């Protein structure tokens, strides 16, 4: 199908605009809400009324009364998600390398286990963990979230990486060895550069998933010690008993959305290939 005709171009322009509106409108919606003053929130308008747009909501959560609540949640979220991602990617890289490269019985068992783990309803795991964590003192700690986050990030990391690694031409390693490189040199020079993009992509996807978690976040934490951003948003209360925290929640939502959207923008090509190769070709 050649799309060179003017009519085709107009049609594509319309379709593109529709898709852009569909994908981005809710984001703009919360962005607009985050700039509204408390009195403007009930105006029933999409944008802040002219001249009243304010950054006070951002001030409230970054330097104001809600600062402690939001910034500690942000620190917890970043720290816990990064550590969980790191552990999952390291373990998954070793595992996926073995699956793609070595011949050993039980590969199928490992991949099936990963699939089974990823279909577990999180809420089914959280009940016993809640009880256990309270007994052994992991409740409301970073480690108490990092461990269950592995159940979210490990399976998809293994599947995605195994799919990536299967596409690597492993003969290159042997070729390098024939050319006189040691085993380690051959691996590092020939394989690592090919594998690195897959590992990196997997890390981004795993980070998304950990960053998105809500059930573990609200169930296994109770204070600022470990409560993550999604959980903090849900338990956020306004400046006073009588003020609903709509503006502050919207501002917080925008702040935690920006880094993720930037990651998506920067690495969209890799993310797409990672998601689809893990799921479809796996």
């Amino acid at each position, binding site marked *: 199908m050649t799309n060179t005709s003017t009519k085709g*171009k107009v049609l*594509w322009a319309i379709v593109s605009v529709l*898709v852009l509106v*569909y*994908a*981005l409108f*809710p*984001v703009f*919606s*919360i962005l607009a809400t985050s700039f509204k003053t408390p009195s403007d*929130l*009930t105006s*029933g*308008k*999409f944008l802040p009324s002219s001249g009243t747009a304010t950054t006070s909501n951002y001030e409230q959560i970054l330097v104001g009364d809600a600062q402690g609540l939001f910034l500690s949640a942000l620190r917890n979220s970043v720290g816990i998600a990064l550590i969980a991602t790191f552990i999952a990617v390291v373990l998954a890289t*070793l*595992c996926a*390398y*073995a699956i793609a490269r*070595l*011949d*050993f019985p*039980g*590969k199928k*068992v490992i991949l099936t286990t*990963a699939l*089974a*783990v990823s*279909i*577990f*309803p999180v*809420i*089914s*795991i*959280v*009940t*016993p963990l809640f*009880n256990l964590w*309270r007994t052994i003192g992991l409740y409301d700690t970073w480690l108490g979230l990092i461990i269950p986050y592995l*159940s979210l990030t*490990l*399976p998809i990391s293994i599947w995605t990486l195994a799919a990536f690694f299967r596409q690597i031409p492993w003969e290159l390693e042997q070729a390098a060895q024939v050319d006189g490189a040691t085993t380690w040199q051959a691996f590092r020079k020939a394989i690592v550069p090919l594998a690195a993009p897959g590992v990196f992509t997997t890390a981004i996807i795993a980070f998304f998933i950990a960053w998105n978690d*809500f059930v573990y976040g609200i*169930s296994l934490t109770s204070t600022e010690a470990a409560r993550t*951003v*999604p959980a903090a948003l*849900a338990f956020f209360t306004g400046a006073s008993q009588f003020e*609903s925290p*709509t503006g502050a929640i919207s501002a917080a*939502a925008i702040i935690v*959305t920006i880094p993720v*959207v930037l990651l*998506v*923008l920067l690495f969209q090509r890799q*993310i*797409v290939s990672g*998601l*689809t190769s893990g*799921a*479809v070709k796996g």
Partner: protein
Amino acid sequence: MDVGKGNGNGKKPRKQYSDRARAERRLGWMLAGPAFLVMLAVTLYPILQAVYDSLFQFRLTAPEERAFIGVENYAVILTDPVWWIALRTTVFITVVTVVVELVLGFALALVMHKALKSVRGPLRTAILVPYGIITVVSAFAWFYAFDINSGYVNNWFSWVPGIDENLNWFAQGGTALFVIMASEIWKTTPFISLLLLAGLAQVPDELTEAAKVDGATWWEQMRKVVIPNMKAAIMVAVLFRALDAFRIFDNVFIMTNGAYGTEVLSLLAYRQSISRLEIGLGSAVSVLLFVCVLLICFVAIKLFKVDLAGSQGGK
């Protein structure tokens, strides 16, 4: 050490092969084992614990009253209409969202697949944005848009019969479910359309060209050539999404917290164990929810197999 030698001597005669195979086997499990063990520890162990706990009358607030009661918790749940209403709501949400997402996701995948080179990149990026948004954030975005106080939807759509400025979307089951499902669909359609895009890319162009030459309409090309050729991608997308939708929690928690007939199974389990500290009952709900998910998988795999065999037989 053996391992390195084993690899280096890979080209040795057959006699050595078993040694090499054994070394490779050991290395394989050494590398893959940790991940495998961690997965078992963080999921299998808690699930077994849940099965065990579900056989007890056990409240965290009254630990001394803990007593073995067999399957009584299950009897309590399965005879309580609350369970069945939550199950019905969950199944309803799952079916509606998956169907809508499949249609919408397919349309978006077609757009991305056929788009002009110049707009393909931006379109794909835009479609990925909802995937990157935290579910809780998306839930708040939709909630505030429809909320009777802070929302603009009532204002904008007051011309639609049934919508006026006094419509409180979150005070009745039907409208609340509508918003819950809309936000779920918005947030997760990108995932399904990416899988379908990958499926579309695997359909050979010659087949559609040939169909076109034979005078097939666009719809006939889709129905007879494109869709049958991407059946695997469609099945994978539907299965993953159905399992995910069945576990829906975040949106409901934020928007209604289960009020007005919007309670879903995950929320029921959460309320029993985390809010009410009824560990016994909550565990039983968790186990039942897990059994439901297994059933979905089982049915899907059965259907999938039948389908695969059928399409192979047909050719």
